[in-house]
């Protein structure tokens, strides 16, 4: 599509700059979206270090593949999180022999659980330990990344209704769990 005829979002403009080797644009994108990328990676990997690795890899790939991005006049965060998803899935495949992903992290000895407790990340801890994997992803994508439910549905390849139901169920769980703490 001809760029001159497309209204570019600020992030799309940054990606075009990144494609031309603009490191400042990359830095801006990184600082702006690292939380969203990290949170999504964390919801898939349940491991802080691996989530950090995937976060870094995501932005390295953004740097290397920015030229392949086709502007559509929409926020490119879904596209960026798509990279994150693919990298996280690849990491899960390569680590499949040594890493298991339980549905719920109720074990207090879990390193992630312990870390979050120390850091006093109560809500995040509740999300990662009490919600199902899909619920975690949906909640984090919506709350942290700011994606709309339809975008989440596209990204996770789920029906929109499923995303909505899971999101509402997750919120109810969190409110119930955190009601007394907050």
């Amino acid at each position, binding site marked *: 599509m001809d760029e001159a005829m497309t209204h570019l979002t600020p992030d799309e403009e940054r990606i075009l700059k990144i494609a031309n080797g603009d490191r400042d644009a990359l830095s801006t994108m990184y*600082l702006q979206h690292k939380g969203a*990328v990290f949170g999504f990676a964390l919801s898939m990997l349940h491991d802080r*270090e691996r989530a950090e690795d995937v976060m870094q*890899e995501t932005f*390295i790939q953004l740097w*290397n593949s920015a030229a392949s991005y086709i502007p559509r006049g929409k926020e490119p965060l879904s596209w960026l999180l798509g990279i994150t998803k693919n990298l996280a899935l690849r990491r899960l495949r390569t680590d499949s022999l040594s890493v298991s992903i339980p549905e719920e992290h109720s074990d207090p000895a879990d390193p992630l659980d312990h870390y979050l407790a120390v850091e006093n990340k109560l809500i995040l801890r509740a999300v990662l330990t009490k919600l199902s994997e899909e619920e975690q992803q949906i909640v984090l994508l919506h709350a942290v990344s700011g994606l709309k439910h339809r975008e989440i549905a596209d990204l996770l390849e789920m029906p929109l209704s499923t995303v909505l139901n899971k999101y509402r169920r997750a919120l109810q769980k969190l409110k119930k769990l955190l*009601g007394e703490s*907050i």
Partner: protein
Amino acid sequence: MNESQLNKRLREEVEQLAPNRLEELLAACDAPPAPRKDGRVISFGQKPKRSHWQRFVAIAAMLILIIGIGAFAGVKGMSRTVLTFDVNPSVSVMVNGFNRVCRVKNNNADAAVLLADEDLMGKPLSEAVETLTEEFIEAGYVTDASNGILVTVQDASDSRAKKLQEMVLSSVETAAENSSLHLAVLYQKIDDDQSTIGTLSAGKSALVQTLAKSSKDLDEDELKNLSIQDLLYVMDILSAKPASAQLTGVVSRANYQNSDVIAALAAQACPADVSTDSVTTVLDCFDRGLAYVANVVTDNAEYAYTVSATSGQILEAVVTPTTSPEETSEPTPATTPTTPDPTVPADPAPVPSGEPEQTPAAEPTPTPAEEIDNPLSPEDFYGKIKDFADALDRIF
């Protein structure tokens, strides 16, 4: 807490937890991006940062790999095996565990001349063997008639010796095929502390010792002067292959007279009327060459002819009377001339014709009547006895 507040709180917590590794990212991006191909980037350009445990595992794995490779290379490199190739030139090559030549030693002057322009160092064994064989052939040391090569391996386990044998034989065969030759390779494994005879290689020494033990007529001092082809011929005739050796191919006999021809030559040379069947032949050495000793026994004398195993020339003839000393007027052990017999063809299967020069028939045995007419004095009788004893010494 409503939904909006919960989401805001969650976002803040994640943002706090997400590390800021921008500098590391920018450093990683310093590497040039991979070129685009059909609109797709096919690599990250730089390996991403690994987590701590992954780094530890990677470093540990690398150390194990390095140590393993080092140990493997060290063991392989330290493992040395010596292969000696004897034709007449004698060359020893030392190969390491990777079967590459790490040392070359010329065991005699012929080898030094032959390999003056060849550098076998560092070559794979197979290539070195092929080169050596080609040099042997081009220089004429190995031919169809003289087709024997002795290969000796030292400092090798049985399994390694076996593997090297396959490699050596394959290379020799390749070189021989290029020259349309049919070679005979005796591949033997000998002890690391094999003793050597004089300046002979350990391999040739071992073969000489084996053959000497297999024959009561041949000893080390005689055998050591023979060529490799002669030794292989002796081994073949005596069926005396060393226990630790394998012979590949057929040892050529084209340069040698067979025992039937030798017997015919001796029968013809004998003044008495004898048949070939009455001649016995024994493989022996004479004047640094291979020879047969053909024995003919008649009523009056025993004739011993030394015949060259290669040319069929009668090299020596000894006649010993079989009559009692009292009846013997002139014991006549006689030696044949050293001039070649022109009637003996160089053909591998010659048909003898004519008389050898100075046969014992020139000195007839005295009859008992003549001895009666000419009684011996005690001094003459004592002299006759001494001559007879000397003749016996020469025979036995």
